[in-house]
């Protein structure tokens, strides 16, 4: 780099980065704030559950509501005006204060449902309403953490638990999970078409792909015979792989390949003439999958 292709100013900056005379703590500070917000909200929920009888509802709901209002007011005061494009936060704290406000609101709603039986009948609508509120906040303030919370809460309204892995049982639950996945993908696609926060698209599509493929794969795994679930799973896998190739996103190619492989193997393996044949099938098919993925990635022009 000393043959004159860099300006002296560039040389000074890049040399400081390469030799680590300048190091960013951006990731570490964000991690501390994220953990801090999560710990605070978790502690609030625990405290509310443990002391609701002793302290009374107002002693918990009033400070929590004040905190939510304070967070939102502070964020409105600090945040830049809305833009459909990516907006950089004026400071590292703004994103997390908004996220804290949304999480505390979620704790309040959960507490209210637990304490006031009258609200239990309206719980579904409260869940949907809070999800819409989170979506609005995520778009207004360009906040990916709140967007994740909005998607997870919408998933909750559909009966889909996005935290943890569980066997999806029952037709209604599976269809709702598929509906959720398709809706999430549709929201991402429509907002992308409308040029509104296009950088959110990946979050939508990742969630949609994982929910749809895992639901369909579970459904195929759950049965011993050919079923419409298999066709649906294979179609979804093919769409995922094709979309990944077209958008040059290998993560979707890998999701689709895995789901398709699992479903086909689930159907074929029970018909194997013996254990040796089953092992032989897995060796050959896995090797073919490896070769297929390598060929696909090279055609996509990934770094090699």
């Amino acid at each position, binding site marked *: 780099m000393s043959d004159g292709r860099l300006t002296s100013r560039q040389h000074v900056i890049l040399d400081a980065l390469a030799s680590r005379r300048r190091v*960013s703590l*951006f990731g570490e500070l964000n991690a501390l704030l994220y953990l801090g917000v999560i710990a605070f909200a978790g502690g609030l929920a625990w405290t509310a559950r443990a002391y609701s009888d002793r302290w009374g509802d107002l002693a918990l709901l009033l400070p929590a509501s004040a905190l939510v209002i304070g967070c939102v007011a502070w964020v409105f005061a600090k945040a830049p005006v809305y833009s459909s494009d990516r907006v950089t936060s004026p400071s590292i704290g703004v994103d997390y204060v908004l996220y804290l406000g949304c999480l505390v609101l979620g704790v309040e709603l959960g507490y209210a449902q637990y304490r006031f039986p009258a609200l239990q009948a309206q719980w579904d609508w409260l869940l949907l309403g809070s999800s819409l509120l989170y979506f609005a906040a995520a778009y207004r303030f360009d906040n990916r953490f709140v967007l994740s919370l909005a998607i997870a809460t919408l998933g909750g309204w559909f009966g889909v638990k996005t935290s943890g892995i569980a066997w999806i049982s*029952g037709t209604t639950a599976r269809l709702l999970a598929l509906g959720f996945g398709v809706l999430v993908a549709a929201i991402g696609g429509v907002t992308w078409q409308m040029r509104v926060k296009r950088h959110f698209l990946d979050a939508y599509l990742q969630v949609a792909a994982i929910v749809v493929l895992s639901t369909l794969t579970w459904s195929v795994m759950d049965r011993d015979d050919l079923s419409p679930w298999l066709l649906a799973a294979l179609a979804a896998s093919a769409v995922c792989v094709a979309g990944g190739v077209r958008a040059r996103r290998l993560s979707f190619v890998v999701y689709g390949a895995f789901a398709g492989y699992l479903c086909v193997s689930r159907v074929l393996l029970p018909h194997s003439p013996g254990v040796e044949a089953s*092992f032989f099938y897995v060796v050959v098919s896995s090797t073919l999958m490896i070769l297929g993925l390598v060929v696909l990635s090279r055609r996509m022009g990934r770094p*090699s």
Partner: protein
Amino acid sequence: MRLYAIEDELRVRLGRELRDWTKAGLLTAEQDTALRADLQTDLRRTGVMLRLGLAAFTVVAGSAAIGLVMLVTDLTSEIAIAVTTAVLGATALAAASWLVRRYRLYRYGVEEALAMGAVALVGVSGAMVAAQVFGSNSSAAPWAAGMTAVAITAIHVYRRFGFPHAAIDALVAIALVPMAIEAIGVDARRVVAALVFAGGYAYASTWRRQADDDITRSDAEVVRAAAAAGAYLALNVMLTREVLADTDHAWFRWASWVTTWLLPYVVGRTAVVDRDPRLLRVALGMTLASLYTNKAYLGLSRQPWDPMLLGVVLAVVALALRRWLAAGPDGERHGFTAKPLVERDSAALQLASLAATAMQPAHVRQVPESQDPPFSGGRSGGGGASSGF
């Protein structure tokens, strides 16, 4: 010995940094193109997701191949199985080397899974041989032999392929050697493991100082950070008592408590002096773990509001640190800044926010179940089930 020329690895690394710098606007596209022309290698690489996918399929294929060999050979003798396992390990290692030499794979997933699979197979083989030689009354000898075999093979893999995780595996395996020797007591086992990690830390520090290139220095830093984390885990009685059992001695518990606060300070100070981000992250993790286990050490009961206090402390520390760094000349102090310098700093945050979807404390509606054909069926079934993934 090493399958990759250090110059090629340096070119790959510089190519990655070049991309980051261009994305951050520190270089123009023309400069990127011109500089990249000097960084061409014959190494084949791929993205993280495909690397993971290829590694997973290799593990599946390899496991099935092992099962097939065992079924076809129908071995019953323990020694014969141990020898076969060792041969399979050697074959996997040879296959990984061949793939690298023939196709110049570099961090491609396939060769990594094969090489690390070889480490596991040789470890199993070593344990089985020791069980035959020393008898199966005690698990200490097979365990120690297995871990020693893992350590030796992992060191070989590191020297041949340069995988930093192989070097970490070797260090962890050496530290785990005394874990099955119950006669020496849990405290002695913890101390021996901590001493092994401390030795690894000292060795890695010297290795780092003497490194002539960024690749070697980076490997040394990875091993040093892992050694620091390992020593902390071995000595924090409260964090690992479920795995290693609690101590019976009050003095050991108090010494452990003091160590859990001293280690983050010492390691963090070294990280700041050396500007080593990995070591700094380990020091931060240690500090969080020490905060988490402090009450258990002091015999105090946990209160529901403890996480709230922890959250406030973390947020205040982060914001104060950011403000302090930003107040320095050019927004930095001692070479540290709170600003993202390259795309990678912000990209990690985007990835974290995406992963956060799986950790959101969202409420879940209960879904009433109905059994409708043709999509009906389900092993678990049942009403009131909610779905999850």
